């Protein structure tokens, strides 16, 4: 899948401006980039450099102030005008799996129930057949009937990743997925993401402050003050 160099994300002159009183902050300041199918891209940069803002825009979770965004050939934002919220919801569940720093597991649902929670709202045909495999892949199959309170932080994040995977996303968006984990657990998560990228051919967009984790990517993009500072090719 990697050899097919089709672009899955094409961003063109994206700008995001926040107003704080009379002050205007360009959190994302004219960023153009593209991501190919099956690529693993890391975003790094100092705090406040706009990483989160950028990948939220890429993931259709936020609208840019101006610019154009094309996802899998479909124009999602043009001249800062986004599609309707309902259409965006469809695109989001079709294309993305999101992983965040916090895990947001529902404490009264078991591991397996949390993993399958997305099916309550939407299920790609046949997706339920992957669940067992994903649990195994994440190394949490022996924990599936436990409640989140009964497992470790690393396991919780793996549950959250499994949950992001069950609907067969094409792109995984991970914003500091190891922010709450120690070095060992972070490394495990890094291995998992790398594995997903290599074995499953998933496109991965990762934001991290952890240099070791960032290095797992094919490409590292450094942001400073909302601009691409130095695209470093690994």
């Amino acid at each position, binding site marked *: 899948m990697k050899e097919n160099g089709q672009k899955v994300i094409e961003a063109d002159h994206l700008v995001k401006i926040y107003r704080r009183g009379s002050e205007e902050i360009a959190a994302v300041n004219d960023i153009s980039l593209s991501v190919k199918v099956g690529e693993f891209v890391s975003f790094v940069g100092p705090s406040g450099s706009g990483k989160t803002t950028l990948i*939220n825009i890429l993931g259709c*979770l936020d609208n840019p102030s101006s610019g154009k965004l094309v996802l899998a050939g479909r124009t999602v934002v043009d001249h800062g005008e986004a599609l309707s919220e309902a259409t965006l*919801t469809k695109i*989001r569940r079709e294309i993305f799996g999101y992983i965040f720093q916090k895990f947001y597991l529902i404490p009264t649902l078991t591991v397996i*129930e949390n993993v399958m*929670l*997305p099916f309550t709202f939407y299920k790609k045909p046949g997706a339920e057949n992957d669940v067992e495999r994903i649990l195994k892949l994440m190394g949490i199959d022996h924990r599936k009937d436990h409640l989140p309170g009964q497992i470790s932080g690393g396991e919780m994040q793996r549950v959250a990743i499994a949950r992001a995977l069950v609907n067969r996303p094409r792109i995984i968006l991970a914003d500091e997925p190891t922010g709450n984990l120690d070095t060992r657990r972070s490394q495990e998560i890094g291995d998992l993401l790398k594995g997903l990228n290599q074995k499953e051919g998933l496109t991965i967009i990762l934001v991290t402050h952890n240099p070791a984790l960032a290095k797992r990517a094919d490409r590292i993009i450094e942001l400073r003050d909302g601009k691409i500072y130095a695209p470093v090719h690994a």
Partner: protein
Amino acid sequence: MIKILNVAYKNLLRKKTRSGLTIIGIALAAWVLVSLLGFNKGYESSLNRDIDNLGFQMIVTAKGCPYEAATLMLKGGTGLRYMPQNITEQIAREPEVEAVTSMLMQAVFDPNKGESGGYSAYLGVDPATFPQMKSFLEFKQGKWFTDPDALEAVLGYEAAELEQREVGDPLLIIEKNVEVKVVGILKRTGTQDDGTIFLPLNSVQKIFGVKDELTGVGIKVKKEADMVQFEEKMYKLPDVQVVSLSQVKQTIMTLVSTAKVMVFSIALIAILISVVGVINTILMSVMERLQEIGILKSMGATAWDIFKLIWLETLILCISGGMIGAALAMATAKLTEVLIRQLLPYAPSGGLVQINLSLIILTFGVVILIGLLSGVYPSWKAGRVRPLEAIRSQVE
């Protein structure tokens, strides 16, 4: 596959105390609602039964004619005036009338009665309508007449004592020299019926030779009818006088409607309080879970999905509260009744708090409506949460 209902339920389990307290709040409201409405219904039907027990609330007699056996006797059995029998049909045609019954009173002096003789009063009644109208009359022995023309008598409790008759005994109507058979003896009622000897109307007319004539017509007026107005209408009939219980009934009905207004206001307040409680609980849980709701949306939940989820949570709270409240109300109905009896200046006989299936269904309807209504705003608010808010709030 895990269903949205299950997720809603599991969400409620996360804050057991809060969910529990909200359910208790709704249960109390439901309890008040069921008890009050049950009381309202019970009170009204007991009252109606008491009023029904009067038999008829109005008697039309010929002008100047005594309408009670007692008065008749005081007047020495004289002063009887008659009305034509067809007046009954005429009255029955009035829209306010529920039922009518024709009566013919006759009195005979019996020199052997008591020390210096006395009058025996015979009331001819229509076997087709009178027993129905006075359905509360109970028999100590026997039953009503076998035939509208039968030479049979039913004796009031005191009349039976005085005449010393049992069912099956003969009773001689002195002066007319007719012998009738006692077929029934009534239980004590505490009314003038106790001293009356009832005979079929036709038989009295025949025995006393007053064909096609009546001394009185008993009228049962419809509950919703305006008694005062109807009374005036009756006075327009030629040469009649009207004896009515309209004042009494009117007063009671006013009392009832005042009680009703009070009951409904209390129920309304209880409902309002529980609505506010439910909105508060759900809104709080929505606010606490903004981030999580954002995550659900990033998973593919639509605004409508979230709306449904939160609405279901509200409904679960309300339905469980409603069930507990209804059960509580049924369990404490007797207690409520005792309490109410102590509070009320006038309480009719019979069950004061009546809880039946339709009342329970009504309460459930109200409770579900509470849930639906109070869930709207929080659910709508939750549905509008943007997935971004989840991610953003972790920056802080």
